[in-house]
């Protein structure tokens, strides 16, 4: 029996599937929950499942989910004693965390100073470098002159990457393959940086060839015990957003795993980390790995780690925040089998993943062995235009990677979403791709060709037949057609019966 937590009611300062995830963890620990909702989320699953629910403003998150003041006011009104921020929104806002603590509430997250320390990309890099954590070789500060550029490029070795200090979105970036291209590339990068950002400062970094995105889950209690829960491979991305994740990484040598996880624990300890966090690495095709950043919160993809370790990370966050020392240790953790997550987005993969919000008319999740769906939606829910398009996560476990892939494909085939476009079918193309099957993929996995490989067969013909049947019934009995009336005893079902009884209406 674990120690009763020092709080009884938890405010969940988030929305969507992660709010539901946290509500479930609270329910399993016997805690009451307080949901907050923007105007368009009144009918959300989180509101429906929580013990209490409070409105906090209009749809735009700047007026609702990002309003720390309103959330603290709801905490006061509701009698919540702890706040779980989920991911995104206020989860990595150190000032909000400080306000929560100052208000005498329990912050279910890392210490604000740890958030701050990891919050700045350059700051955290310098900090990690000092702590002996490998970072991508290069300067963090802007280059002073061409002489320094040439010297450092020689030091770290080609290819190198030149990046605008003020940059982002790929602008002001230049890959340089050899010394011959260096100066021309530098000048082009500076000129592009100046025209894009009004600042021509540029820094240099080693270009990691065939990189994969591999991250390590860590968990630390308030008493200095810091564990890792192995890695996740999150290389399959579109627009720098993760799409499919798996654990363990199919190509990580055990020695590298040991080194990487040790470094992750070291990184967490260097900032006095507490709770659940993730240390992200770039893992090169040559076996090297480098610290990218640390996410000081629960990650979207945490369930695959739960699947292979059996540790409920959301529950663990709450128990750690409640002051409980870790109830298991590094040697208790083993990689058990394999897990894959597919992030189901309301978007159209065939139209360059453009968002597809709207009303979900049909929604049926897959079930059966070792299939988990974390979602915040249901049939009848309208996916709002204001937030991230992720509507659900499909998480599948298998004894080995092969079984896991086959089961994930089965689950995808069982998934039924209608009304909005989703990435469900696209995942089947990912899973069937030979690069994925071999485990040999990089962050450049998703290509236009992959999108073309979506299955094609008699689907159009079948869809046309179904639509024609529906239209016929609708034309014959317009007032009571299917889709207008989906009750259990729909007129349409009756129509079906008439036919079996010579069309005599009953």
């Amino acid at each position, binding site marked *: 029996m674990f120690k009763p937590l020092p709080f009884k009611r938890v405010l969940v300062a988030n929305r969507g599937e992660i709010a539901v995830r946290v509500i479930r963890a609270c329910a399993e620990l016997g805690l009451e929950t307080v949901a907050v909702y923007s105007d368009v989320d009144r009918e959300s699953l989180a509101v429906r499942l929580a013990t209490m629910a409070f409105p906090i403003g209009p749809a735009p998150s700047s007026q609702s989910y990002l309003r720390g003041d309103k959330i603290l006011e709801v905490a006061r009104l509701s009698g919540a004693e702890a706040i779980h921020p989920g991911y995104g929104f206020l989860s990595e806002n150190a000032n909000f965390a400080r306000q929560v603590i100052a208000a005498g509430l329990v912050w279910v997250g890392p210490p604000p100073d740890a958030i701050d320390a990891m919050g700045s990309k350059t700051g955290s890099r310098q900090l990690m470098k000092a702590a002996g954590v490998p970072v991508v070789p290069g300067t963090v500060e802007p280059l002073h002159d061409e002489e320094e550029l040439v010297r450092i490029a020689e030091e770290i070795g080609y290819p190198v990457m030149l990046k605008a200090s003020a940059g982002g979105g790929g602008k002001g970036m230049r890959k340089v393959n050899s010394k011959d291209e260096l100066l021309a590339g530098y000048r082009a990068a500076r000129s592009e940086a100046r025209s894009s950002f009004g600042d021509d400062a540029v820094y240099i970094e080693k270009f990691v060839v065939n990189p994969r995105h591999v991250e390590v889950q860590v968990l630390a209690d308030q008493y200095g015990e810091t564990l890792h829960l192995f890695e996740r491979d999150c290389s399959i991305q579109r627009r720098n957003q993760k799409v499919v994740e798996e654990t363990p990484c199919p190509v990580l040598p055990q020695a590298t795993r040991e080194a990487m996880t040790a470094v992750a624990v070291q990184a967490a300890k260097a900032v006095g980390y507490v709770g659940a966090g993730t240390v992200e690495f770039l893992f090169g095709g040559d076996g090297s790995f480098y610290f990218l950043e640390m996410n000081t919160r629960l990650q979207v993809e945490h369930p695959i780690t739960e699947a292979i370790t059996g540790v409920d990370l959301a529950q663990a966050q709450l128990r750690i925040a409640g002051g409980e020392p870790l109830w298991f240790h590094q040697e208790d953790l083993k990689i058990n089998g394999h897990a894959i997550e597919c992030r189901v987005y309301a978007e159209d993969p065939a139209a360059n993943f453009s968002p597809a919000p709207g009303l979900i008319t049909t929604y049926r999740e897959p079930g059966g062995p070792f299939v988990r769906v974390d979602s915040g939606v249901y049939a009848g829910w309208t996916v709002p235009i204001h937030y991230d398009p992720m509507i659900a996560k499909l998480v599948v476990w298998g004894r080995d990677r092969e079984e896991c892939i086959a089961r994930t494909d089965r689950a995808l085939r069982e998934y039924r979403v209608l009304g909005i476009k*989703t990435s469900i079918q696209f995942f089947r193309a990912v899973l069937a791709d030979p690069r994925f099957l071999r485990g040999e993929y990089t962050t450049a996995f998703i290509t236009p060709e992959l999108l073309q490989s979506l299955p094609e067969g008699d689907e159009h013909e079948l869809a046309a037949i179904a639509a024609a049947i*529906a239209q016929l019934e609708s034309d014959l009995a317009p007032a009571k057609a299917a889709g207008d009336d989906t009750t259990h005893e729909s007129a349409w079902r009756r129509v079906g019966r008439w036919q079996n009884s010579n069309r005599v209406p009953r």
Partner: protein
Amino acid sequence: MIYDVTIGEQTLKVRVERAETGYTVQVGDGPLRQVDARWVRDHLSMVFDDQRSFDVPLARAKDGWHVGVRGQGYFAKVIDPRRAALRLSSAAEEGVLMTTMPGRVVAVLVKPGDAVTKGQPLVVVEAMKMENELKAPRDGVVEQVFAQVGAALESGVKLLQLG
């Protein structure tokens, strides 16, 4: 009844009649097939005469049906050709620009009187932090602009009329 069913670029002629049990269907000049089709709430359960079973989610949409086959969603535009003659020409021919998804108007790039060419971006709509440019369906002159910057619109709302 014979319908013209358009899915993506493809239009199929589908003949469908009620039969003793279920329906008789024919696609194009393909074979006649029997299908036992049952409505189970928001799905159509179809078993064909070769006993193949398909579980098809179905929902009414403007001018047709959302249909899901093997996990993939399709929009099937259904037209009764006998009535089609009575219909007006399509929105594109009329020069109407409409929203294709729910979203918020973040920019209107033209004003009444502007000459535009087919494919030219006219209005920018944002949804879920992504911007989408809506382009001119044909050449023409902007007659009227209905879109207002900042407005949150459903799918299928008129944004602009070309002359």
